[in-house]
Every structure is written in C-alpha cells, then in structure tokens.
C-alpha cells in the first residue's frame, strides 16, 4: 500500500501546481477586471473600490495563498459575474457532466469490450479486419462532427430523439436519458476505438498464455475461457486508458455540451473564460485537475482489484 501513499503526495502537489499555474496565466490576461465588474459608467473611485474589495491590489503569491487557503476549507469564492458562490455553480453543473461521462464511457465499454474480445480471439480473420477498419474510421472523426451527423440522422430526419436540450432528472428519467443519448453516443463512438485497440492487443498476448491452454484442456467453452479467464488479466491498459478518458472529459466535453445545450462543467468553464470570471475558471480548473489526479489514483487502485499480485507484492 505504501506506493499508493507516495503517489497520493505526488498527485496533490500536481493539483497545487496546476492551480498556481492558472493563477499565473490569468494574471497576464490583458483585461481590467475591476472596471468590468464595476460596470459601465463607473467612476475611477468605484473601480478602485472594487479592486480593493476583490483584493486585486495584493501581489500574486498573496492572492494565490488566500485562494488556496479558502479552497482547502471548501470556499472557492464568488463569481464576478453573478455573485453566486463558485461551489454552488459547480454543484449545479457537475451532475450533468458526470451523467454525460458515465453514459458515454458505458457505451464506449459496451462497444469496446465485445469488439476487443472477438477481434483478439479471431485475430487476422475477416471479422477482425472489418472491425479494425470501422474502428479506424471512427478514430478519424472528431466527436463534434459525429454529433452533427447523429443530430441530422436521429433528431432531424428520423425525429426519434431531441436534437438539443437538457431535462433534469426531476423531469422524468426517460426524458432525461433521451436528452443524454445522442451526446453520450457522440463521445462513445470516438472513445471506444482506443479502448478496443488496447484490449485487443493485451488479449492477444493473454490468449497465448499457458493458463488459457489449460482452460481449454479443462473442456471449458470458448465464451467462458474468453470472459472468465482471459478478459480480466487483459484489462490493465484498458483501465488506464479508460481512466484518462473519463478524467479528460470533465472539462473536455465542451463542444458536445455546447452543441447539445447541456449545462455542464465544460460550458461553465468556457463562459467563465469569455466573461473573465476568474473565480469560476479557477474553480473549474481545480475540479479538472482533481479529476485527473483522482482518476490516476483510482486506476492504481483498480490494478490491485484486477490482479491480486499487485497489492500484496507491491511490484
């Protein structure tokens, strides 16, 4: 377990570094926040008062120290634009993004695992080559282009699903899921490709192992050999890639959130940047960095669950 602790320290330092870097970068944006916040027609005294109130006169390290000290206590400040606490804004936007990520990654796994297993089992067969070609095609499509295509087909032509819009869970699970189907699919159809590729590669080497031969000698049916014996030892790279994908989607699904008008973190972040609403941006960056770090940590924990040798031996 000790290597997990070392990793945790390293990863917390990464979070500190990322947020500090954000402070530094935002400080160089050529815009006078105080006058923006004070609004039009504000006198120079008003602006000076705003600057004082927001603490913009202090040197950068002092401001960062103040921010991180508050952040540790769970206070990320208030939005410049709306005055709403940033924590509140994140709390209202996060569930949308999380639902999107969960559904997207679920779809991606549902595509990638069967495809990866079958193509590894029948490596070199026409089926393998066909699926490989299909995957290659999807890997060359940006998610936003896929989204456009899906909207055109399923929303505009077939009229099965809404093109855009978000129904909160309170509006009924069915309506809520309907709204998430196309955006989640747009992401999943891109994300499943690397998942399938790494699974196929690892699975091909697993299938050459002696214990697979022994499983065949036991008279087990193919399905049980593939799922029960070969899949789990072949999942390490898959878990790594999966974790990295999920982490990057917290702030990286902006385009999809915009196209489908989903009020998620990505949208909060982009509007924050455009409005120079720095507390919001800082809050989102903190969240994204923590997601990256958290996923990194979770992936290591998953290694332990996948392979009993990891936790005990600490290899």
């Amino acid at each position, binding site marked *: 377990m000790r290597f997990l602790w070392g990793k945790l320290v390293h990863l917390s330092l990464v979070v500190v570094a990322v947020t500090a870097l954000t402070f530094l*970068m935002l400080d160089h944006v050529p815009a006078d926040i105080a006058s923006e916040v004070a609004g039009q027609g504000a006198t120079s005294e008003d602006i000076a008062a705003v600057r004082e109130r927001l603490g913009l006169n202090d040197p950068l390290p002092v401001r960062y120290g103040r921010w991180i000290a508050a952040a540790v206590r769970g206070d990320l400040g208030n939005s410049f634009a709306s005055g709403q606490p940033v924590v509140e804004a994140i709390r209202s936007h996060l569930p949308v993004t999380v639902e999107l990520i969960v559904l997207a990654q679920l779809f991606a796994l549902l595509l990638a695992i069967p495809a990866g297993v079958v193509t590894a089992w029948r490596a070199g067969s026409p089926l393998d080559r066909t699926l490989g070609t299909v995957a290659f095609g999807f890997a060359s499509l940006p998610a936003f282009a896929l989204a456009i*295509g899906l909207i055109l087909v399923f929303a505009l032509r077939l009229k099965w699903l809404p093109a855009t819009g978000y129904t909160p869970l309170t509006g009924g699970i069915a309506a809520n899921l309907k709204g998430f189907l196309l955006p989640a699919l747009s992401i999943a159809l891109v994300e499943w490709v690397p998942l399938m590729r790494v699974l196929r590669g690892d699975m091909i080497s697993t299938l050459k192992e002696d214990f697979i031969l022994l499983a065949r000698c036991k008279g087990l049916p193919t399905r049980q050999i593939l799922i029960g014996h070969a899949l789990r030892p072949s999942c390490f790279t898959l878990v790594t890639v999966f974790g990295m994908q999920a982490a990057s989607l917290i702030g990286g699904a902006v*385009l999809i959130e915009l196209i489908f008008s989903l009020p998620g973190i990505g949208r909060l972040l982009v509007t924050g940047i455009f409005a120079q609403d720095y507390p919001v941006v800082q809050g989102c960056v903190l969240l994204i960095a923590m997601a990256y770090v958290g996923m990194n940590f979770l992936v290591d924990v998953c290694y332990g669950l996948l392979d009993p040798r990891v936790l005990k031996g600490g290899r």
Partner: protein
Amino acid sequence: MGKRGSITFWLAIGWIAVVIVCAITAPWWPVPAPDLIDPDLLATPPCVGHPLGTDTMGRDIAARLLFGARVSIIVGFCAPLVGMVLGSLLGVPAGFYRGRPERLILFILDTLLAFPGLVFLLVFTFVFGASLTTITVALGVLTAPRFARVARANTIRFAEREFVLAARGVGAGDFSIILREILPNVLAPMLIYMLLVIGFVIVAEGGLGFLGLSVPSPAPSWGGMIAGGRDILDQAPHVSLIPTAVMFLTVLSVNLIGDAVRGRLDRREGQL
C-alpha cells in the same frame, strides 16, 4: 501488408498531396474570394459559379475549404513539430539522467497533463492574440507531454546500449553523448509518433474553429465551417457535411499513413 493495404496507403498519400497542393494554390483557383458575401445565394446547394454551394452567409464553400486547408495543414504539421522539440527537451534529459531530475520533469509533465487544455488554449490566445502562430504554438505545447513520454522511454532504451557506453568510455561528455548518440536514435520513433499526432492536432484545431477560437474571422477554418452550418442542418446539410467529410478524409489519411509507417518500422525492428 497485403496488396489492398498498400492501395489504401497510396490513396491516403494521394489525398494528403491533393490537400497540400490545394493549400498552396488556394488563391489561384477559379472560385470567388473566400470572404465574398453573395446575399442572393444563402446556403444554396452546388450550382454554377459555386461548385460546392454557399454557406449561410452566401460565401463560396469551395473557396473557404481551399483557404481553410492552409490553416489545417500548417497547424497540423507545425504544432507537432513544436511539441516534438519541447517534448525532446523535457523527455531526453529525464531518460538520460534518471533520479532527481527525472522526478522533477515527470512532475512537470503530470502538471501539464492535468492542466485543462482548453483553459490553456483560451488564455494563451487571449494573452498573445488569436493568430495562426499562437494557435500552432499553443497546440504544440499541449502535445509536448506526450512527445516527452516517447522521448524519455526511448532515451532510457538507448542510454544503456553499447555505443553509448563506448562513447562514455572514450571520454565524451554528457552533452555530446546526448547530441551525437542519443538524439539521432530517438528521432526516428519521435517522427513516427509525430505522424500519429498530426491527426489529433487537426481535430483539435477543428474543435477550436468550431468554438470560433481558431484563426480570427472572417478567415476560414474547417471547424468554423462545420459550426456555421449547424443551425440549418435540416434545410441545407451540405454546409456542415462537406467540410466534415473533407476533414474526416484528411485525418483518416494521416492516420492511415502513420499506421502503415509504424507497422513497417515495427516489422523491421522485429526482424533485428
């Protein structure tokens, strides 16, 4: 690689060549200027004078594709170069020195990877202004950590080899070993990796263009063109679909070439 494989490979090469030629010769094609607005022909399908139709503002799609190719090609090829240089600067010392410098560089890499790419791109363009150069550099910086990983892994691989030990034996300094022995060997896998990154960068630039954050308007970019047709997808799908198809074919071709080259190299290494 069978015969079919090599045919698709040459088709991919052909398409990339066409795109590059188009990017270079964009101003001399017999189509209207890319920012010329024809108010009578809004989002019309292909017709005489507009071989690929017009967009929602009545601008010629073919012309905008030609000029957009310039952005995609320049960003697509130059940003990975920037990333490769930066990545080597970080990755080679990390692999060569190990120990404390390596841990420090790995920490920097983790920080870069955890940093939201979008925030970086947006702030970078805010600070330095949105232009072809800033976008190229910004996307290059974003790909640097990936290159650094490849560079580090390959440096570790070669640092223990006989010729490096031999160079050290005759008294060569670290700097000259890195420059003469390590870099030439690390370069080949880096270039292969670069081929794989080009597709990613073209897609990323498309995403920026989609947000309206690539080259400043009215200069065309493929991503911006796709976004421009979003609202009339039902009535005039060609406004979005044509640039989507062009971008898809380009990224597909780059990926195919990268894959084929890598496969060939892997096989050669396997035979050694």
